[in-house]
């Protein structure tokens, strides 16, 4: 397997006057309470993970859980207090200012919760801004920015000012700006949290469409568990600066590691999240009917088909080989079983 694009090893971020000394003394055993008594606030506590190329890692947590701080450590908008961060093998914390600027100009893009557009520039100028900062000729940067305007579907509004756009449109500009330099790594800090629910859903779909096309390596921050489930390849759930669980959406829903994570999963409509392959059994010798379902289907879509059978149903892969089986009882157990009131 190739090298991970982002790699974090025991990253700590502690706010406070003598954070570094306290971290050293704690010897890798950071307790938020004792730190707080000494006037330090623990933002990120021992975060280790990797993100590989083309993968989307969603970091989910409530406000104050340290998810935004973690992202800012990895984009080095703040310096981590301890640990190591590697971006494509480069040690991020050892970069000097010039190398850091270079990295940001070429490899990173970021989208912000409050859009963070420059109020004095038009849509087009906002999108062209990172290119012009890089020193690209005005004409080229405007052309490139125009492509980006089309990519996010804002054609015809390129000469508007941010104040003249709706929230959703402003965030499209934010997305276009972050993509203008064609970064490999894409950071999104609660990009859709400030939007109305309907617009949010629309933007999520749009975002998935973009990612299908672009295949960026993504770190996506959200406080919305449903959003995390919908978008993520893997989800990291954070609480008080600690990553409670990092796993695929299906595993988190089926096997929550801690009580805290379980609370989130309780209300989740499993049939809408889980795929057949997440719950299927081995190939059995049982008599299987003629009906076959693909392993990549969401349960909801094929539940009716399976439940109307009495027999076990065969599960196939994309090449139509039988790779497993599933019987109606399993579906019923998955969807309705294991809930709080069943205990």
């Amino acid at each position, binding site marked *: 397997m190739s090298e991970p694009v982002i790699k974090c090893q025991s990253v700590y971020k502690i706010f406070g006057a003598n954070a570094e000394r306290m971290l050293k003394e704690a010897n890798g055993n950071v307790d938020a309470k004792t730190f707080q008594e000494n006037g330090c606030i623990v933002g990120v506590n021992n975060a280790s993970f990797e993100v590989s190329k083309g993968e989307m890692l969603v970091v989910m947590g409530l406000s104050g859980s340290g998810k935004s701080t973690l992202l800012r450590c990895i984009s080095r908008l703040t310096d981590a207090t301890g640990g190591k961060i590697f971006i494509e093998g480069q040690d991020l914390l050892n970069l000097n200012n010039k190398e850091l600027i270079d990295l940001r100009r070429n490899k990173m893009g970021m989208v912000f919760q409050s859009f963070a557009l*420059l109020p004095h520039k038009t849509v087009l100028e906002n999108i062209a801004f990172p290119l012009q900062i890089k020193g690209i000729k005005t004409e080229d940067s405007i052309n490139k920015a125009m492509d980006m305007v089309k990519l996010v579907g804002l054609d015809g509004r390129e000469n508007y000012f941010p104040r003249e756009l709706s929230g959703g449109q402003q965030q499209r500009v934010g997305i276009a700006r972050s993509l203008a330099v064609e970064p490999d790594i894409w950071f999104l800090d609660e990009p859709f949290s400030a939007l109305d629910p309907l617009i949010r859903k629309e933007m999520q779909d749009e975002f998935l469409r973009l990612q299908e096309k672009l295949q960026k390596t993504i770190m996506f921050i959200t406080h919305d568990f449903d959003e995390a489930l919908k978008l993520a390849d893997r989800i990291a759930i954070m609480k008080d600066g600690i990553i409670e669980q990092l796993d695929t959406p299906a595993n988190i829903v089926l096997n929550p590691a801690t009580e805290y994570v379980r609370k989130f999963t309780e209300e989740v409509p499993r049939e809408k999240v889980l795929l057949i392959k997440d719950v299927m059994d081995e190939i059995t010798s049982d008599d299987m009917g003629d009906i076959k379902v693909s392993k990549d289907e969401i349960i909801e879509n094929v539940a009716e088909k399976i439940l109307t059978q009495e027999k076990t149903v065969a599960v196939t892969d994309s090449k139509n080989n039988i790779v497993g089986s599933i019987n109606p009882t399993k579906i019923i157990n998955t969807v309705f079983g294991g809930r709080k009131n069943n205990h």
Partner: protein
Amino acid sequence: MELLKKYPKLFQWLFLLAVFFALCFAIDVPETYKFIRGQAEFVKDPNQSAFVFLGKEVRYYAFDVFWRLPPLLGWLPIWINDSLFFLMNDWMPMEFWNEDTQEYKTRPLVLQITRNLTAFMTFLIELIREILLGGLETIVAFTSWDWIDANPWAELPGLPWTIVAAGSAILAYKLGGKGLALYALLSMTYISIFGQWKPSMQTLSFILVAAPLSFIFGLGLGVAAYKSKRVEKALYPILLVMQTMPQYAVLVPALVLFGVGDHAAVIITMIVAVPPMILLTLLGLRAVPPEVIEAGRMSGCSNWQLMSKVLIPTARRDILIGVNQVIMVCFSMAVISAFIGAKGLGFNLLLALNQLNIGLALEAGLCISLIAILLDKMSLAWANKQVDYFGNLNFFQRNKNSLFFGVIVIVGILLAYFGSIYFKDGYNYLFEVPHNKGISTADFWNKGVDWIFDTFFVYIKAFNTWLIVDVLQPMRALYLRMPAVATLVLVVGAGYLIGGVRSALVVCGLTLFIALSPWWDRALVTTYMATFGVLVSCTIGFTVGTLCFQNKHTTNFMLNVCDIFQTFPSFVYLIPVMMLFGITDTSVLIAVIVYATIPATRYTIEGLRSVPAGLHDAATMSGVTKFQRLFKIEFPLAFPHMMLGLNQTIVFALFMVIIGAFIGTEDLGQYILKALSDKKGAGIGLTLGICVAFIGLIFDNLIRTWVGQRKKHLGID
């Protein structure tokens, strides 16, 4: 006992007052004590005591230390003077190349620097002045007088007034639309027709130099303070003192350093105008959302790019409000610096006031106010203007204003040319209306003043006498009757009750400085006048503000009135009061009251307006009457903001009291004015200025601390 538990603060205050009055009664007035008039402190008198500190002999009248503290800081002004003198004349003599005599000359470094600075300022002012009015100096600066004699054609011609008037109208149109353009055109035409063109343009050229320079320095220092905590900490005390320092007081040291004239005036104006610019720049930069900064960083901005392309453009509005402040300070300084020989309307105004020619003073004052309002409105319009996008306009659409101005220039020159043929008597009215050839209303006003005096003399006199004899004199006597120790106890106690030990120490330090200076009595007189002014202003301001707030239209109307009044340079206020009350304390106090009522009214309205709409609705739904709402909800919530208004009122009142010295008061201002004409006045002027600033800062500290706590308590902010 129960009451004591319920209102502990109240009893602490009562206790403090009791101690204060006990001290007042316990300490008798020494028999030898009398209020020293004139500058008798500097006369040698065998009754005086003396001490020597740092080689300076300080003489003073000694009293019981409980009554008046000895002037232990009396050496400070002398020492400042000597240091300045040493710096200017003896420190670091160096060889400098002299262009005129073509040889090296030995000169102290500081003198050389200040001379170069003044030469540069003079050049800038002359350049703009000659573009507007015509002249030789600028060309001389590049060549020499001999060259001018050889080439008599070489002279900047100056712009005809028609071009300047139309040009300012076009600029006003571009910034603020038709109304502002009309105002610009009318006021410029008025200035020209009434024969005030030349002094007005002199004042304008002064402002066009002082304002941009102040802007650049203010922006630069503001950015530096934003980037470095250390710079901010170093600047903070200076900014604080400068906010309450009377502009008058800065004149004196600058006089020593830079001499007399427009250039010195520009430098002083910068000293006064830069602090508010720094504050507003800092405020604006701090208000830039953190995510915008992060977005800039993630776009790969270097530090310089981040500042110039992200931070400053985003903070544009606050920074331009700073420009507006700078312009306002420049106008008020344009008048005050006439004391040190700045030309223009201010000089005419002072001259007219000195001659008690109210009519002329009124005309000059009106012109200053017209230009001040124009520039104020224009800079505000600029601040609030949103950037427009011109990408899809053609050349003519984009540059129509400049093109139009070009046409105006040609038409104006042609008009002036025809004028030179048409007007044979030597005055070309289409180029410039000479000072004494315009329409003058001075006689009319003077007659009006005479008529008022003749008709109402009895009433004015009666009012005047009553005010002075029955109110002012007793109040002044009471203030002077306070023993120094009692005052200290009162102030420090108030500091402790409001802000704890820290506040008490700060306030104690500030008061001690004044008490240990040779001018405690004078400071008491300044305080008494300011107190009287503030009391009346606040009563009027709070009442008017509250009444106007009851209706949306009156609210807006009142705020506009405040805006316009605030634009008048402070000196202008003296004109009408001198018209009515002549040269008395009453005049000063009425000017103080009018001037200081502005912030009182404004802050009352703003405070009441800042009460959240949700609370209004909630109150209405619980069925309150208008009065209940006002007293139970609006006043308590608006009170902290109104107290900030009180703070501003005090600063305004102090300013005006000091300026009132021009009419003749017996307070610190009188001495500042005297220091202006004193060879050794620099140290005295500066120390006096600091004393006034400290009076302001004492109240500032107390009020701000209280407001801070109150706001925290109410959970607003």
